């Protein structure tokens, strides 16, 4: 069958492993999903129906891993949201409710822009050449965020209290809207929201935490919305590789999130900026020459 020859099990596992890492590292999963098949000489294109269906499974796996990793936080946040709705206000010390509503106001712009623009932007920027260029620009974005960041005084020992105190509603909307950059293959969702967090005065650790919490509903909802495609005729011939890819993505996403939460306690976005710049420039030159 033609479909099976396009995404074989080994390819599915490789793509899944890379998806799990690149979705959470601030280096653009979609950008890598676009340029990697061309670099490896695979006849897979990001707008192919079966490939989009395959990506749904890997995204869903990544979202589930994120949800599981932050499960206790989500339980607290959802309880905080319920509490604030019941009381018709957010208590001055209710950081769970404030964080929850910050996530809601951050998710709305990204969600709406994603719903309305995703297909158009993916069609316009479908080529691996543009993805390579935008990966380089993602590097510039990460560099810029580290250079221009505002270092606000960190007064609280609790992560969520720091985030809730530091972020205003406007900043929450701004960070959420920044995620929409990731609709362009090459820009990273987590990179854009981490950059937004740094510019809003969060530390690297807090901006990473907020970015991952913010990413969970968006990635999960986007995957759930497209899940019927995997179950329908578009999923024929892709379901097996998609399952293998999803499992691989789940494993790599789990180790990535563990690594990144530790990494950002002390380190910055600079290594990822360098990686994106070098990869984007080298691949762009390579594609131009070929």
């Amino acid at each position: 069958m033609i479909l099976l020859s396009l995404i074989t099990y080994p390819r599915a596992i490789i793509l899944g492993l890379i998806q799990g890492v690149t979705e959470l590292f601030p280096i653009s999963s979609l950008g890598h999903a676009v340029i990697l098949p061309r670099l490896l000489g695979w006849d897979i294109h990001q707008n192919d129906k079966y490939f989009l269906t395959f990506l749904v499974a890997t995204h869903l796996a990544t979202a589930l891993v994120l949800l599981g990793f932050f499960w206790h936080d989500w339980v607290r946040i959802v309880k905080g949201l319920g509490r604030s709705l019941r009381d018709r206000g957010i208590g001055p010390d209710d950081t769970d409710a404030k964080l929850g509503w910050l996530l809601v106001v951050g998710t709305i712009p990204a969600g709406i822009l994603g719903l309305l623009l995703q297909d158009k932007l993916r069609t316009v920027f479908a080529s691996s050449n543009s993805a390579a260029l935008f990966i380089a620009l993602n590097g510039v974005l990460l560099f810029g965020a580290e250079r221009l960041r505002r270092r606000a005084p960190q007064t609280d020992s609790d992560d969520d209290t720091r985030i809730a105190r530091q972020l205003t509603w406007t900043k929450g909307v701004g960070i959420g809207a920044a995620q929409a950059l990731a609709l362009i293959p090459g820009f990273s969702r987590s990179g854009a929201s981490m950059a937004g967090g740094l510019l809003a005065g969060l530390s690297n650790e807090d901006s990473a935490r907020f970015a991952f919490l913010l990413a969970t509903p968006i990635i999960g909802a986007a995957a759930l919305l497209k899940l019927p495609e995997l179950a329908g005729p578009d999923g024929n011939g892709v379901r097996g590789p998609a399952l293998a890819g999803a499992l691989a993505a789940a494993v790599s996403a789990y180790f990535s999130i563990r690594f990144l939460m530790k990494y950002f306690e002390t380190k910055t976005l600079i290594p990822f900026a360098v990686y994106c710049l070098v990869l984007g420039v080298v691949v762009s030159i390579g594609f131009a020459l070929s």
Partner: protein
Amino acid sequence: MLPPMRNDRLLVVIAVIAGIALIAIGIVYFVEPADSLPSFFPGHQAGSSHHHVKHGIAAVLLGAACLVFAWFRSAPKKTAAA
């Protein structure tokens, strides 16, 4: 100029109307194909049987956000405990 309390109430009324209208628009997107949508709706396309589900979800989400805003904004003002 309106006094602050009236201004708040006006905002709540606008948010409730906008919320209900957006949710209604969302339902229209769910149930009507693209060629049956009013011509001023984004996504209207003559001869198309496609349902703009994503437009519908976006409208319902925005509508829900407006209603939540109104819910918080219309809460009774708490007075400080003595």
